[in-house]
């Protein structure tokens, strides 16, 4: 019985394996994934006979997948490490990073060193930074996430995020938590901020695409596409589309900051 089923499965596999080879596979960072899906959808409308599969898995999985060529393009929301530098990579957009608090929180602005002291655990009460008396509920992203490494690099420097911080694995959940907890603080992608949370100014400067492009707002990171060797064929065509005026416009509509490599500038 089961042998029969296995045989059928095997034959189905071999019958199918030829067909699915035609799709371009894009895999990696879950931060980049939603944007890549928007791009792919539009691209497939314009080029109706080409197929693009977008997969999650995280930046490192994406980079590994690109190295082993189980994916044609890897997505990364962090800069490549030294041992990964042999891959071909391109920045498709930049993403701003903002500190968010609950709208009920009277605070509007934090200085960089205040943020650092909050996240190292030195400041534990909102009254210490000008808010009302209440414990600060710290929310961070998980170790290894592009967002966290960008935050660590840009804000923390040599200091460490306290292990007591709550850790969430997506921008959306950080936002949901902050939206529900008057004492919480977290950091997310600029593109995702909505009116359920309040974005804090950093050293008095508001987080806007403009301020990020002119470098007055300091917290931003690259979104990368990586491939093994120069991209060719469909892969190249899709990357070109991403960097085209149209692709970059799609991305800015979603709240990203156009890439310096792209034609949107």
């Amino acid at each position: 019985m089961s042998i029969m089923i296995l045989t059928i499965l095997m034959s189905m596999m071999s019958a199918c394996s030829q067909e699915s080879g035609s799709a371009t596979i894009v895999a990696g960072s879950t931060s980049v994934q939603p944007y890549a899906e928007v791009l792919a959808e539009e691209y497939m409308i314009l080029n109706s006979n080409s197929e693009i599969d977008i997969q999650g898995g995280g930046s490192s999985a994406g980079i590994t997948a690109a190295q082993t060529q189980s994916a044609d393009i890897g997505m990364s929301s962090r800069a490549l490490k030294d041992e990964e530098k042999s891959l071909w990579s391109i920045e498709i957009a930049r993403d701003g990073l903002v500190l968010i608090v609950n709208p009920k929180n009277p605070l509007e602005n934090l200085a960089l060193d205040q943020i650092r002291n909050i996240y190292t655990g030195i400041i534990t009460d909102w009254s210490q930074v000008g808010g009302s008396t209440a414990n600060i509920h710290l929310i961070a992203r998980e170790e290894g996430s592009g967002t966290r490494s960008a935050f660590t690099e840009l804000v923390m420097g040599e200091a460490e995020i306290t292990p007591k911080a709550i850790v969430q694995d997506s921008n959306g959940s950080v936002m949901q938590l902050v939206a529900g907890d008057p004492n919480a603080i977290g950091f997310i992608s600029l593109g995702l901020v909505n009116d359920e949370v309040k974005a804090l100014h950093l050293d008095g400067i508001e987080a806007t695409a403009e301020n990020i492009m002119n470098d007055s707002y300091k917290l931003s990171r690259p979104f990368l596409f990586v491939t093994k060797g120069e991209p060719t064929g469909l892969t190249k065509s899709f990357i070109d589309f991403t960097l085209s005026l149209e692709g970059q416009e799609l991305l800015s509509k979603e709240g990203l900051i156009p890439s310096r490599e792209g034609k949107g500038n």
Partner: protein
Amino acid sequence: MKKFKENFSERVFLLLALSALSVLALITVFIFTKGIPLIAKVGVVNFIFGMKWSPSQGSYGIFPMIVGTISVTLGAAIIGIPIAICCSIFLAEFAPATLRNIFRPAIQLLAGIPSVVYGFWGVLFIVPMIRNYLGGPGLSILAGSIILAIMILPTIISITEVTILALPRHYKDGALALGLTHWQTIRHLLLPAAKSGIVAAIILGLGRAVGETMAVIMVVGNAVALPETILDPVRTMTTNIGIEMGYASGEHQQALFATGIVLFIIIMIMNATAQYITRKK
């Protein structure tokens, strides 16, 4: 010919039965080869009893997560097991037929609800409730225990109920005939007779609790510090893997597999103990 057929079918069944063993072996080999190098490098004691988890700086200590796993699972067991056993007794012994016919499929339905839905429901209701009435950030051991308790209910209830129902009817009739009350019959006759089934149900249920990842990620807060109260956030071993695997590479990835090894060994010890208990009976 018939003899041959009988022998043949026995061989086939043995082969099928060995599937569980071979898959287990495959998984073991795979996880160990991936994780052992890191444990060797860090040292077993430093890995298991280390208080600091900071892969970007090369610190790999998972003691807070072991504490986290134990506390959340224990909480789920304390909340979930009594309720589950009461429910299965209710279903098998007390429920009127109509109620049973609604309740039983409903329990199966409960088992089919994706863990992420439980987690989501926990974030929407349990977490704010804890935050507003008990204090703290809400994401906590308590929240994780409650969600896990609800999640292991169906597993324990359905298996326990099946076990109780499978007991020969004359057990019960005999006891009732001796003038025992219904509850005494259950307490002194049916439950002891169903013990091995109930233990099995609890093991499967706790296995699910220890192994649950997604729902737990959403409600325990995942902080890598030792908790002081049940209102503090914790990270369990599964959530450590679940939350960081996506982005991990190199040594960090190995460390997560090593976490998997520890988890694996803990579960093996749990299983061996449970099997020992059931066999002794």
